[in-house]
């Protein structure tokens, strides 16, 4: 027996005309006899009727226009969006990317290209490190040297060569004493480089002072104050001319060497020597036990050598003699002065072409 509940479940399908045959006949028989199922069917039909009678709602005024305004906006936006998205993507962004890549490639290329020069660029900075050493050395010289006068002209290969010639007798001895070789010369030039390379346009007074102090005094071991300097360096130049050449090579920043690269060595020497002769007298300091006696001997010596304008000044324990000495007698003068006491050359070597050289001999007593 089919219950009312089962029939109720079939009613919607029956209502839709989806039940046929025996099922439909059985259901209709039941509906005739069962009032509650008949009511359910009626409610269903009324519900369907109510749903079907729900009216359509009217769209708001200008609804189509509103919709179309949005649609047109969308259509234009699509175009502008295309322009915004694809135009830059196709043209602008690739251009920017290409430019960026080019910049990077260029930077790498420049870096690679300049890489070999980097050590050269670093060279001065590396040579800067000995600067304090150089300064210390200069300070030391200043401290040690009791003489007030200082060489003012820049050192030149000719100056050095002349000086070397003037002390030919001493040089081998100095070499033997110091026992230095090429290595010592290299080291010395390396030590000097910073001070000379530091400022090519520095006043001539500064650079030559140091160079002079180093170069001129090294071979002269007997001189007491500078002996300290020598011992601290303990490396005299084996060949000052070679050292100068090396120096020129090592100091590309020095204005002099750059400017005069094209000139011959003789031209340079002429110019320099003249300048030296005119600017400074040759300073010689002798340390003796008895300054007065040594002064007399020196005056005699100068007269023997044909010196002119001989002047003698006497201070407290210090004798100073200035004179114009024939240049060819300078080596002899120096040899003779060595017999008086410890000679310390302070001036520059006499120019070979000049007839006479003004010299200044300071005779100071040895402080016990």
């Amino acid at each position: 027996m089919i219950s009312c509940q089962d029939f109720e479940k079939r009613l919607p399908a029956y209502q839709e005309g989806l039940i046929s045959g025996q099922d439909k006949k059985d259901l209709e028989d039941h509906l005739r006899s069962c009032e509650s199922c008949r009511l359910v069917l009626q409610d269903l039909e009324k519900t369907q009727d109510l749903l079907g009678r729900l009216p359509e709602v009217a769209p708001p005024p200008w609804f189509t226009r509103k919709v179309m305004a949005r649609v047109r906006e969308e259509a234009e936006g699509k175009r502008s969006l295309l322009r915004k998205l694809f135009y830059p993507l196709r043209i602008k962004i690739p251009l920017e990317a290409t430019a960026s890549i080019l910049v990077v490639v260029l930077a790498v290329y420049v870096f690679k290209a300049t890489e070999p020069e980097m050590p050269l660029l670093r060279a001065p900075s590396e040579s800067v490190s000995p600067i304090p050493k150089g300064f210390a050395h200069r300070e030391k010289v200043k401290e040690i040297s009791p003489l007030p006068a200082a060489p003012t002209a820049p050192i030149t290969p000719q100056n050095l060569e002349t000086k070397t010639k003037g002390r030919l007798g001493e040089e081998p001895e100095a070499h033997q004493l110091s026992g230095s070789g090429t290595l010592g010369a290299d080291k010395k030039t390396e030590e000097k480089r910073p001070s000379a390379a530091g400022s090519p346009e520095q006043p001539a007074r500064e650079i030559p002072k140091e160079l002079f102090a180093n170069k001129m005094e090294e071979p002269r071991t007997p001189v007491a104050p500078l002996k300290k300097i020598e011992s601290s360096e303990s490396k005299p130049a084996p060949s000052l001319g070679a050292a100068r050449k090396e120096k020129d090579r090592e100091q590309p920043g020095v204005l002099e060497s750059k400017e005069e690269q094209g000139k011959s060595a003789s031209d340079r020497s002429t110019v320099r020597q003249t300048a030296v002769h005119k600017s400074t007298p040759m300073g010689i300091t002798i340390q003796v036990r008895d300054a007065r006696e040594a002064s007399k001997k020196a005056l005699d010596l100068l007269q023997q050598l044909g010196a002119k304008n001989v002047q003698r000044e006497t201070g407290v324990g210090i004798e100073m003699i200035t004179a114009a000495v024939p240049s060819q007698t300078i080596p002899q003068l120096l040899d003779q002065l060595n017999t008086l006491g410890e000679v310390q050359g302070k001036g520059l070597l006499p120019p070979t072409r000049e007839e006479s050289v003004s010299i200044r001999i300071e005779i100071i007593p040895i402080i016990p």
Partner: protein
Amino acid sequence: MGRSNNKDRMIRSMADEDEFLVRSAQEGDLRAFEALVEKYQKKMLHLAFRMLGDYEEACDAVQEAFLSAFRAIRKFRGEAKFSSWLYGIVLNQTRNRLRQIASRDRRHSMSLDDPLEPGSGRLDTDPPSLEASVLDQLEKKEIEEKVQECINQLDEGYREVLVLRDILGHSYEEIQQTLKLPDGTVKSRLFRARESVKNCLKEGFGNL
């Protein structure tokens, strides 16, 4: 016989018209799309309103649906009727909005532990007198509101079938196309939806 021939001819001509307008719209003719909006806006709004139960929401949903249709019209291949395709888009919009409304309501809903306020909720509505046919006494608008209220209580899937079949009068075939559901599912959902609405109405009005 003659009438059915005329109807078929009319449907065919409408389909032809839709086809022409759709093709024109696909080619970028905005006037053709406007004609389609003009033609279907009322039906779409009817569907949206019955689905959502809120006029403003329905208008917004239909507007968005037309916009979506415009964006996607080039993808329409004519495999189904244009109206079915468009109804499907409107239903998608209404589903999204129903979810938004549901989540909004959840955020604003009270805790179960909160005391019930008098007058709030459906349970507090006084059932009308069961003695006479109440329908006659109620205003038409009230009946419509009550029916809509009952529709609103249906689950989304049931509501769609009920609206399409009983309110818009679509055929089962159209509903299957629109919802992309098998015939049995459409019918079972429809019958259950009707049953629910009937019970709801009976609960509200007593005898129908």
